[in-house]
Each structure stands twice: as C-alpha cells, then as structure tokens.
C-alpha cells in the first residue's frame, strides 16, 4: 500500500487568510494534518475556530492562501477550476448542515446526480442508488421531492449522494446540527456503517458531542490552528 493509498487527505502548513479591515483574518493558520483512508474524524472547536474553512479547503471549495493540500494523492492548489470540479466529482463527497438537495429533483435523482455527471450508464447507476437506498432505509421515498421529506430523510439522501460515487473522502459540515437527537443517532449509525463496510473516509466539522464521541479521531481547532489531535481507535481500513 503506497502513501497515497493510505492517506485520504493531507495538509502541510495550510493557511487561509481573508482580507478584511482593519486587519486580515486568518481563518486557518498553518494547519498540518494527515487523515488516513477509511478514517472517521471529527474536527471540533468553537464558532470561528476555522473548522468549516478547513473542510472547504479539503473539498477544493476554496483555495488556500498558503501551504499544500493533497486529496487522494493529488495537490489541489495547482489545479485549475475545471480540474478541481473534476476532483470534487470523482473523489470528494459533501454533506451540508442544510442538506442542500436540489429542490427540483426527486430523492432518487438527487442521489444519482454525481453518477449522472460522471456519465455512468443507467443500469449501474440505478443499481448502485437502489442498493444504498435499501441500506439506508430510503426505499419508498425515491420519488419524493426534498420538500416532501423530513430533515432526517433529506440528510440521509444527502449522505447517499455523498458516498454513491465511492469517493476517497466525504466531508460533512455540521450534518446533525438541524436534526433531533434520535434522527442524529440514526444518521450517525448509518455513516459509521458506510465507513466500516465501504471504507469511505469521513471528516466532520462539528459542535455536536454525539459526533465527537463516535469519531475515532478528534481534532480540536482553536483560532484556526490545531489545539489537540486525539487518536482513539484504528481506522476502518488500512
């Protein structure tokens, strides 16, 4: 197993600075991290600690001001917008706090969307989404639009959308923030199961103690820098 296979995401001295008056804001200050493939990692910290910004940097949604950042063995800062888009499509899945499903598509169409963009053929695409819907208890909801789904159901669809393309990395930004405790537990069960069985790497930005409890690695951020990095258990894969 090469280093590239073993490490899902690696940052080296990554900074993200926002130009602002009277002085610039360093949202991320020289963070160096290596997250193994198959990890189930939570990044925690108070509001403004830089966890969402770090997540966005890892996802190629924003560019680092300084430093280097590798996902699936490829350095992001050198990539063009087109290459970044391709990278996100093929190697990164996202789960957002506000679910962010496309309102004009059904649950099934939302879930299959990344595969559609990848150009996967109809049969394989449907088979893959059906299998995940079955595994995550979304059967029977496939034809519903997001407006007709509960928050928990929408977030489950978002998780299926994030993992359906079998990405190297799933980035989840406060995925349980809008859910009640029971729904949060169910969702986390599902994500743990997907992590265990599919070996998908999950990185969370969270305030939620339930997520922190379940994480096998907990990175605490304060003022954009790593304050502590606690490894609790071996990763699911590797």
């Amino acid at each position, binding site marked *: 197993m090469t280093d590239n296979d073993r490490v899902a995401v690696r940052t080296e001295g990554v900074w993200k600075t926002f130009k602002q008056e009277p002085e610039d804001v360093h949202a991320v200050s020289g963070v160096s991290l290596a997250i193994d493939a198959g990890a189930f990692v939570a990044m925690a910290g108070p509001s403004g600690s830089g966890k969402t910004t770090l997540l*966005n940097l890892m996802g190629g949604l924003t560019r680092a001001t300084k430093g280097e950042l590798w996902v699936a063995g490829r350095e992001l800062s050198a990539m063009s917008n087109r290459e970044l888009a391709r990278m996100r499509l093929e190697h990164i899945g996202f789960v957002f706090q506000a679910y962010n499903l*496309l309102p004009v598509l059904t649950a099934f169409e939302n879930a299959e969307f990344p595969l559609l963009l990848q150009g996967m053929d109809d049969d394989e695409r449907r088979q893959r989404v059906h299998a995940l819907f079955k595994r995550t208890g979304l059967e029977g909801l496939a034809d519903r639009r997001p407006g007709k789904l509960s928050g928990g159901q929408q977030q489950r669809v978002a998780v299926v959308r994030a993992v359906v393309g079998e990405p190297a990395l799933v980035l989840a930004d406060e995925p349980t923030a809008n859910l009640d405790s029971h729904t949060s537990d169910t969702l986390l069960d599902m994500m743990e199961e997907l992590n265990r069985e599919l070996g998908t790497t999950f990185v969370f930005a969270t305030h939620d103690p339930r997520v922190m409890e379940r994480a096998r690695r907990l990175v605490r951020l304060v003022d954009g820098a790593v304050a502590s990095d606690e490894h609790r258990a071996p990763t699911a894969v590797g």
Partner: protein
Amino acid sequence: MTTRVAVMVRLALRNLRRQARRTTLTATAMIIGGTLLMFSLPIADGTHEDWIESAVRMGTGHIVIQAPGYLASRKIDDRVPAGARRVAAEALASPQLADEILDVVPMVSVGGLASSPAGARPAQIMAVDPLAEARFSILDDRLVDGRYLEPDDRLAAYIGEGLREALDVRVGSRMVLTTQDAAGEIAGQLVRVVGVYRTGIPEIDQAVLHVPLATAAAWLGTNDDVTTLAVLVRSSRRVPAVQRVLRRSLEPIIAAGDLDVLTWREASPELDAAVKIDDFGNYLFQGILFAIIGLGIVNTILMSVMYRYREFGLLQALGFTPQQTGGLVVVEGVVLTALAGLVGIGLGLFLTWFFFRNGLDFSFAWNEEWSFSGVVMEPVVVPVFRTARVIQGLVFILLVGAIASLYPAYRATRIDVAESMKFER
C-alpha cells in the same frame, strides 16, 4: 458532454416549472414579442410585394433586358437590336426558365413631347404590344374614360388624366407626339386619344402614355428593335436566380454590349431604397421592442440566479465547473425564450392567417390614391407567408434569450462556492 447537456436541460425545464410565476411573466413578454414579430413581418413583406408588383407592372418588370447605356440615357440610340432580342426571347422560352416566367413584354420607351392646340408637355412615350401589355400592366385597369389600346389600333394613344388636363384633350381628340427617331432625326406623329387612365401618381398621370408598338416601329424606324424587354417572374423571390440563369445563357451578347439583364432593384434603385429603408425601420422597431423584452429577461434571470445562489454553489460542489453553471443559466434562458417564442410565433401566424386571404384593410388610414416614389400604396395589404421568416424569427428570439442570459450566467460563474453554502434564502 452530452450527458451534462441533458442534465442541464432537465434541470432548466424543472426550474422553469418550479418558478411558475417568474416563468409566466418572462414568457408572456416573449410571447407578445414573438406574436408582434410574426404579425408584422408578413404584413411588411406583403406591403413590399405590393410595391414591387405595382412598380414592375408600371413598366420595368421583375427583370429588365435592355441595352447597357439605356438606364442612364433613356434614349432610342441605346436599344436592343432585333437579333439580340430574338436570342433573349429564346433563352426566356428555354425549358430551364419557361416555368419561372409569367410574361415577356417588348416596348420602346422614349422621352418626347406631347402637344395639342392648348400647349405642349414633356411625355414618356411607351410603345407597347396592346395584348401583352393588357396582361402585364396595371395601367389598363386604371381606365377612367374610353378604352385601352387594341391590337388593330394604329394611330391611338392611351394617356394619363394629368396629361389630358394639361393638353385640354378628351377621348377622340388628336394630339402630336414628337421625339428623336432611330436615325437621330426629330420625328412627329399624329395620334388620337382612345382612353384615359388615372393611377393617382402625378408623375405618371402627367407624363406616361401608351401607343401601339407597330406605330412606333414605323414612326421611329425601330422595326423589331426595342428599348426594353420587361420580364414578369412567377415569384419575386426567384428574381436573382432567373437573372443568373439568363446572364449565363446570354453571356456572348452581353459581352458584345448588345444588352444587359437587370433586376427591378437595379432598374428601379429608388424603389429598392424604399424597400430597404422600410425594412430597416421595421428591424429597428423590432430591435427596440426586443431590447426592452431582453432587459426584462435579464432582470428576471438575474433575480433567479441571486435567489438560487446556494443551489448554483451546490452544483459546483457536486462537480459542475463555473462555466457549466453559467451554461445552465443560458440553457434556462434559451429554453424559456424558445418555448415562449414558439408560442408567440404560432400566435402571430394564427392572427396573420385571418388576413392571408382577404388582406388587412388600411383604408381607414389612407385613401386609394396615396403614393410615393412612383408606387401606388394599396390600402389593402395581403400578408406574405415565408418559412424563412419563421426561421429568422425563431433564431432572433433564441439569440435574444441567449444574449439576455449572458450577464446572469456570468454572475453564476463568479459564485464563491464556500460562501454560497452559508447563503440563506
């Protein structure tokens, strides 16, 4: 690539349906524009066809075969020799052209003087074949007194009402026509007025008169020579093609300088200019109308982009490039304008269809004798349907939709994906 376009079209259609009120408002503006476009273009084309028809039947024909210098000189010296005239007639009767040609009318048309005991006036003397001219010209339809020329007439003249008044003559009166003959001598001819017409165009009514071609042949010594062969083509749109074929067939005698083949645009540059100016005015009006509609569409689509800021950010997070996100906005704009444009075009043609048979009567706005540039404006305009106009209209509407979408699309490409995820609507 094809998959992404299909995804874009699917998203575009669903988004248009989702934002029903916004879509309806934008579509309504485009439908009104499309309807006006498809109503006004056939009317304008019909008006131009009337002008052309009126002008070509006043003497020039759709295609004019004449000596190269005649257009400028209008003198009998510049005439088509009998031999060249026969070759031209044979070319016009060839299988390649026979179906395109409605009529060929020979004439000798020269400037001269018409005089009576009451005085003298300059006149455009047109020596014509009475039978052919009756089929071709609209002057015989404008008879107000007496009759038109007949094949057996020899010393007869058919004159305009303006000339009759100026010379104080009536049907049966005699008058003298004077002009230069083929030998370059001044020659006079006594004729008797057999009929009087009125077109409503003063410059024609006061000057143009018809005499039999046989009279001119003897009087002016032209024999079978003519100054003009006026050719009436079945469809005015076929004129350039017929001209090309004729020019190819008559190449040797054109090269010899015996004749030239001109279209009505070349033979009547003032009419050509009038049609072009009118077209320009129509296009300008349509341009302004669609610019206003386009601005409305820009506003609507821009609002839609702002409203869906997070959605566009999400698409980029899922793998759309900024360009593809902009492309989606353009696809939405084009799909919306295409659908609305098609409805508008259909509605416009439906409205126009009512007037295809009997025409649109503008007599409330002008009387029957309104004219300009030597052309009588008919108060009833029959619209002309042209498939090309429908295609032009649709392409134009699509262009407006695409152009109106460009700025909102640009804004969509500039979305900060990370920021958009914080965006609350």
